[in-house]
Structures are given as structure tokens and as C-alpha cells.
């Protein structure tokens, strides 16, 4: 899969048109909000344009040439997702609007299918709201209870505590593969095995992790997996839900509409087979098709290279930031986390800091990052987050550090 010669970050950056020009204030853009969404390489942009200008039609409906081409392209994209996550067949790949939609689908459809009063759903303390709120809604409806796996004192997923919480009432274990705040990861195979040992299904929220540690669902025993196109250099508006064939067969549909039915009668309907059963209505056609070049782009660069490159940035950022007086980083040691640094700076409100960093072109995010229960235990209501992508450079890390120094001066902290 890997290209023969190793890529350079310069050659990668060239492929992102948005990185080729300063912002409207003439500043070089240092985009460090990759955890929220990533920029798009030319090949992804081109693919959406190709669809719209060469053979656009609705999907799975027309026998005419454009319709057939769209169907073929969608199936190729499904296949590239299958390959990315190591699923058995492309019929296990469902296109959705995003991770949030995928997780809601699971909560509503699988949740109502299996949960009874007193049953338990296990999440962790570091989940994104997308992997909390849908479960709360379904727990309220079904009488199930949510239990949270704590973090240890180094902000790591506490595997021992997890195994103690697991019990025969556990029906669902749904965990993030990587915290979008801490960068902390989980031991996927072990967690899956433990979940299965009590008869629970294991759901992986791979929104942050799929790009860094591509899952291997069959080997790792992942039952369901969700991720978003826009976080892996793909288009906005499309996401993926993977489900094991036999589970997809058991799971009732969630959204009703065109394409997901077999027959519609006055008072009830019968369902098509997966993936159609879970793809009600018109798909995000151009977006689902343009997910493939994003996946191919990443594979071409090679996951090892990405991992090494991002780790280098993470280490440099961590070393520099730790030197700044009053700056506190939240998360495990760099050796045990993804390329995310969340921090607070004493005397500086995260909102002010994020604004002031942007005065130097540095784009970082501030707030609770859709992880309020985590911030509850961090003991702060908001943090500033720098998250790195494959196009970020060592110089950009230095600019982040320099911008923080400048902000401290501005805020009269230095």
C-alpha cells in the first residue's frame, strides 16, 4: 500500500489548496484544529466536482448510464471503507450523515432492540457527547442504566475498573477509540473480548482513531464502528457505520423512507437487506463517492508515516508547552496518546487565548470540546486544544508556542 519513496510533509502540503494562501488578514494559516475537522486534499475536492460535472444522478434508482456509474462509484467507495477497517464484506458498510448519526442509529435501533429495564450500557469518562447523549436518551426510554469507566490518575482508560464494571447486565459497551480531548486510546481487542465474555456488543467510536490506528474489525472483534468522512480528509456530510453482518440482520431499521424498504403496505412495511435497510432516502451521493479518494490518499501516504510524523509534532509541542509558566496539559504521556494537546493557561481564559492565538494565524479550539463529563473530572470548564494532522509541520508547532508567549504578554501574564 505504501508508496515506494517516503512522502515529505512539503509534498503533502502541496496537495491541500487551502494551505497555499494566507488568510484574509494576510497571516499564514497554522491549522491545528484537526480534531474538529480536517482540510481536504485536491483529489477529494476534484472527485466531488467530477461527480457533479460528469455523471451525477440519484443512487440505486436509474438504469440509465449516469445512474449505473453512480452506483458503481458508491460500491467502489464502500469497498474502500471495507478495506480500511478490515470488514468482511462491503454489505456491512452503511453510509450515514456522520459519526453522530451512526451512533444515534445504534442507540435507537440496537438499543431499543436489546435493552430492558436494569440493563447496563458502559461508556467511558472521556466520551464525546455523540457517544453519551444518544445513550442517555435510549436509557431513559428503556430503563437501562449508563455506567462510566473512570480514567486513572494519568488520564488513561482504566482497564481494570472496566472489567469490574462489566457484568451480566451489560448489554452494550460503546467506547471512543481515541479521546478528542486527551488523545488517550483504549486497548481495542482486549476491551472487545471482555465485552463479548459477558455477552455485550462492542461499539467503537472511531471518529478520532480511524485515521491514526485504522481498525481491523474482524481481528479486533469490533461489532459496530462509526466514523466521519470530514475528520479523515474527506468531504463533510458523510459518515460510516460498520456492523457485523449477523447483527445488521437482527437490528431493526431506524430511519424510514425510500430504498430501505422491501414492500410498503398501508399499515406496515417490510425491509430491504443491509446496507439498504439502514440507508433511508437519498444518500450524500457526491460525498460518499469522494470518501474513497480520501481513504486512498491516506493509505498512499501510509499509516506508519502518519503516526511517526504526528508523534514528532506531538512530542515537540508537549516539550515546548510544558516550559510555559502556568500551562497545564491534560492527558497521558505522549507515548500513550494521539496527536492532541489540550491545555489550560493560568490567568488566561481559553476563549481569550484561542482568539489571541488566531491573531498570529494559529487556529486552535477552545471550550468543552463536546466532552462535558470529562471536563467535570478535569476540574475545568474549558480547555484549549491543538490537534495535529498529517500536513502540520515542526515550524507550525514553534509558531503555536511563540503565539502563546505573545498572548501571555498581551494578557499581562508575562
Amino acid at each position: 500500500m505504501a508508496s515506494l519513496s517516503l512522502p515529505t510533509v512539503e509534498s503533502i502540503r502541496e496537495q491541500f489548496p487551502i494551505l497555499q494562501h494566507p488568510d484574509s488578514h494576510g497571516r499564514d494559516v497554522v491549522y491545528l484544529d484537526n480534531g474538529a475537522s480536517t482540510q481536504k486534499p485536491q483529489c477529494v475536492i476534484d472527485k466531488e466536482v467530477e461527480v457533479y460535472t460528469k455523471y451525477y444522478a440519484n443512487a440505486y434508482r436509474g438504469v440509465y448510464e449516469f445512474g449505473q456509474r453512480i452506483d458503481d462509484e458508491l460500491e467502489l467507495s464502500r469497498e474502500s471503507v471495507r478495506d480500511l477497517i478490515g470488514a468482511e464484506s462491503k454489505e456491512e458498510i452503511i453510509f450515514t450523515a456522520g459519526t453522530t448519526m451512526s451512533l444515534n442509529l445504534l442507540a435507537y435501533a440496537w438499543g431499543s432492540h436489546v435493552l430492558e429495564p436494569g440493563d447496563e450500557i458502559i461508556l467511558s469518562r472521556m466520551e464525546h457527547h455523540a457517544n453519551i447523549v444518544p445513550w442517555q436518551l435510549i436509557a431513559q426510554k428503556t430503563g437501562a442504566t449508563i455506567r462510566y469507566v473512570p480514567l486513572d490518575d494519568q488520564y488513561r482508560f482504566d482497564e481494570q475498573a472496566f472489567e469490574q464494571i462489566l457484568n451480566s447486565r451489560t448489554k452494550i459497551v460503546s467506547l471512543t477509540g481515541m479521546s478528542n480531548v486527551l488523545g488517550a486510546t483504549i486497548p481495542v481487542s482486549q476491551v472487545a473480548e471482555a465485552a463479548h465474555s459477558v455477552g455485550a456488543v462492542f461499539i467503537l467510536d472511531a471518529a478520532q482513531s480511524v485515521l491514526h490506528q485504522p481498525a481491523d474489525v474482524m481481528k479486533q472483534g469490533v461489532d459496530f464502528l462509526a466514523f466521519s468522512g470530514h475528520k479523515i480528509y474527506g468531504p463533510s456530510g458523510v459518515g460510516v457505520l460498520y456492523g457485523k453482518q449477523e447483527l445488521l440482520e437482527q437490528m431493526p431499521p431506524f430511519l424510514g423512507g425510500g430504498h430501505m424498504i422491501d414492500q410498503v403496505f398501508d399499515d406496515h412495511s417490510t425491509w430491504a437487506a443491509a446496507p439498504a435497510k439502514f440507508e433511508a432516502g437519498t444518500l450524500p451521493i457526491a460525498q460518499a463517492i469522494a470518501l474513497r479518494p480520501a481513504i486512498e490518499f491516506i493509505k498512499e501516504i501510509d499509516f506508519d508515516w502518519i503516526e511517526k510524523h504526528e508523534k514528532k509534532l506531538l512530542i515537540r509541542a508537549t516539550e515546548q508547552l510544558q516550559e510555559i509558566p502556568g500551562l497545564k496539559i491534560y492527558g497521558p504521556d505522549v507515548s500513550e496518546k494521539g496527536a492532541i494537546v489540550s491545555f489550560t493557561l493560568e490567568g488566561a481564559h481559553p476563549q481569550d487565548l484561542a482568539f489571541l492565538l488566531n491573531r498570529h494565524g494559529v487556529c486552535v479550539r477552545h471550550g468543552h470540546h463536546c466532552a462535558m463529563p470529562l471536563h467535570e473530572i478535569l476540574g475545568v470548564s474549558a480547555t484549549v486544544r491543538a490537534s495535529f494532522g498529517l500536513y502540520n509541520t515542526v515550524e507550525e508547532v514553534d509558531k503555536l508556542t511563540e503565539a502563546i508567549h505573545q498572548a501571555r504578554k498581551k494578557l499581562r501574564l508575562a
Partner: protein
Amino acid sequence: MIDRLREEPVTLSSLEEIIDEFDFLDDSEAQIEYLIDLGLDLPAIDQSLKTEQFLVHGCQSNVWLDVEFVGNPALMLVKAESDAMIVNGLVALLMAIFNGKTAEQAVEINVREIFDRLGLDRHLSPQRKNGLNGMVQRIKVAARQQLT
């Protein structure tokens, strides 16, 4: 503490000064940076005001706000502070608008118009607008209470 606050209106920027500066800057980011500057110059409030009672809800960051009427005729004195300097800048702006006004005047003031005039409205996130609305509401309620 009250004594120090009484002197504020003189040391803080007036509404005219703020409007002039906004017009001069004419760039939303520079304007917000100026808000931060205003916020940095805002005097601290008494620690005793930093309780749930004075906390304004609907704010992305914490703001504690109290309104007093001093002198005869009774003139408005806004005392407020946030942990975010951008918000403190908004506080400074509200002080420039309301401090030294009578309750009657305060009730009549159309804050929205002033914000439109500054062009600020467009540049505040929905949450920050919520917070701002929360502060204005507190001030208006205090003015109305003073009148009854």
C-alpha cells in the same frame, strides 16, 4: 471598594471613545482585540460579589454582575467582572452605556441599536450573544425595580 468603583466612570473609556475606536479599527478581529484591551483595564470587583446570586446565566464564561444606584438623583453604577477578557470588554462597554444614567434613562436605552452601530452584533457567537443578553437583562431589571 464602592469608593473605588465610584471613580470608574472617569478612568474608563466613554461610549464616544469606544465608538470612535471601533470606527477607526474597522476590522472585526482588531475590534475584538480592542475589547480585550478594555477588559484588561476593567477594575476587579469585590470578591463578595462572586457568588451564584450575581452569576449571569447563558454565558460561555463566568460573569458576575451587580447594579447599584448611588447619589441623588440616583445614578446607575454597574459592577461586573468575567474571567474572560473579551467578556470584560463587553462589560466595559455596558458600563460606558449605563453608568451615570438614571433609572428612567436606563430603561429607555436601546442597547441593540448601539451594538448595531458598532457592528459588533455580527461578530459575536450565538453563545456570547446569549451572555450579553443576560447581562443587559439584569441591568434593565435593576432599573425597573428602581423605578417601582
